[in-house]
């Protein structure tokens, strides 16, 4: 089931143009995204220090890595979120998929899997651009690779779980789907230490950030792939916790969101069946 859903997701994400053009698009898109960040940072550094050497700036490395890995968050959340909407409104297949003997929850995870693959390519391209063009110093010992992979898997599970919570909500609404699909990742972008460390947020903002697992995921990744000397220069707001503590918090919050996603999904699915809106088309 997962396999077929993943295949369908991949076909939809990759099959809209010629393979060569798709390859070019997959490389250019993340690089273009990184350029916006580069320009903003260049200006900020020039105004602040008069020396816009991005490669030597610990803060730039911090935000560049956060931004690169945030591609997963935006992409997978949108991937989960738009499954119901697109099957309902564009392809009008949701009633046939929903009434087939599959687990719809697994189907959405499968459809989102292609987004993970595409986000992996985009993140790798962005990081490569950072290392080779902007001279960002990434370093990871061989011993840390298994831990990095484990953190990636936990983090992605967590992002998928949050995506499924949002997918559940899209069972009940058509009107607000796009607003939520853009707004929720936007909230994570602001509060999870992607480009602003928690320390620069107001107290309540820091509390929000500390309640969200993506904060710990990005922090763990940074500590694993950036030199510790650079990490030490940035006041992240999470300095008091060691890497093990950060990963433990990531695990706990992931487990919480995973359970929440199952409960919320079941509840919203029941409510949608009750209201008769599983296969509604609204043309929103």
């Amino acid at each position, binding site marked *: 089931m997962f396999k077929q859903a993943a295949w369908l997701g991949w*076909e939809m994400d990759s099959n809209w143009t010629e393979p060569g053009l798709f390859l070019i698009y997959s490389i250019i898109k993340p690089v273009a995204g990184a350029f916006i960040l580069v320009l903003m940072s260049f200006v900020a550094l020039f105004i602040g220090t008069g020396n816009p050497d991005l490669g030597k700036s610990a803060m730039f490395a911090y935000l560049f890595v956060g931004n690169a890995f945030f591609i997963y968050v935006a992409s997978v959340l949108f991937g989960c979120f738009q499954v119901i909407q697109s099957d309902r409104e564009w392809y009008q297949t949701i009633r046939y998929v929903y*009434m087939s003997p599959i687990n719809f929850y697994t189907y959405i995870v499968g459809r989102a899997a292609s987004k993970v693959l595409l986000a992996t390519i985009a993140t790798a391209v962005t990081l490569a651009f950072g290392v080779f063009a902007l001279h960002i110093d990434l370093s990871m010992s061989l011993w840390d690779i298994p831990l990095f992979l484990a953190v990636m898997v936990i983090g992605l599970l967590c992002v998928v779980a949050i995506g499924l919570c949002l997918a559940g909500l899209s069972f009940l609404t058509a009107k607000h789907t796009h607003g939520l699909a853009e707004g929720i990742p936007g909230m994570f972008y602001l509060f999870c230490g992607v480009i602003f460390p928690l320390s620069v947020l107001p107290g309540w903002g820091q509390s929000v950030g500390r309640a969200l697992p993506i904060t710990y995921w990005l922090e763990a990744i940074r500590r694993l792939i950036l030199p510790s000397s650079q990490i030490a220069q940035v006041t992240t707001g999470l300095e008091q916790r060691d890497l093990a503590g950060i990963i433990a918090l990531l695990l706990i919050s992931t487990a919480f969101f995973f359970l929440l996603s199952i409960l919320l999904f079941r509840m919203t699915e029941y409510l949608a069946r009750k209201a008769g809106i599983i296969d509604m088309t609204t043309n929103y």
Partner: protein
Amino acid sequence: MTYATETRDLTRIFKRKPKRHLLKRKSAKKNEKENGGPVTALDHVNLTIKEGELFGLLGPNGAGKTTLIKVLCTLLLPTSGSAYVAGFDVSKEVNQIRRKINMVSGGETSGYGLLTTRENIWMFSQFYGIPSKVAKERIDELMHTFGLYDKKNVKVRTLSTGERQKMNMIRGFVTDPEILFLDEPTLGLDVNASRTIREYIMNWVRKREHKTVLLTTHYMMEAEMMCDRVAIIDRGRILALDTPANLKRMIRKESTVQLEVDTLKSTAPIGGIKGIGNFSSKDDIAHGTTNLTIIVEDESAISDIMSAITAQGSRIRSMRKTDPTLEDVFISMVGKGLEE
């Protein structure tokens, strides 16, 4: 005995969402009044369909046909009452039901446009756990039958509406379900395609054991020709249920008179004539005529009908008395034709 499907006092009510006014706040009661209040799509429906039956559900738009199919297909929960498919409760035993059923709706253009026709059908077959090789063989066979084989590697987005509908029919049959729900399967199809589909459905039920079809249709001829039994549904209620022959026998004492007259200003005077059961009328703007089908209980009423028509200055172009059809049964019960 386990029925293919069974409903007991099945009721489904849709609540209408109140309109939101930016500036004016209206009371809930006023809002409900303006929106027409809740809609009862199914009203205490008791219906049993036997295994191996090709069962027809006949009714006008908004009669509750699609709602009933949606409940039986586990897409919609009943408001009250119960429904069973293959002996399983639609509210609680969803997974058991889904393995045994499939559904095709006519007149829609569903499908993943970026996949080819064959890929689209194959993907759905995989959702039902059919071995890939078996599925591919079945798909090819069905594509030949429905005349879609030359489009097998064509992307769905390029198919015509009729071709998409054929593809969806194949999607319904490829999983070889025990119970197949067909919601107006020939809607919008050309004559040849409709005939192919009707023949395939009839053969599918007759030549295989334990296959059941619930077919909803607008077309009387389709129901009469294909179905073992037919239920007439209107405003969520089952008005009659029997074989097409028995349904027609119900109004045999009455006669059906069909009239073609110059366009009538009003059909109200005809409704008031004593000795008339029910009648339907349809204006033909192109020819400037009104076609009337009148169920006559007492033939002496015919002269009153003619007087009522000529009194409006309308000329009678033709008149004929016919044997009752399923459409006449429908008019006799519902008080209007299916296409009104």
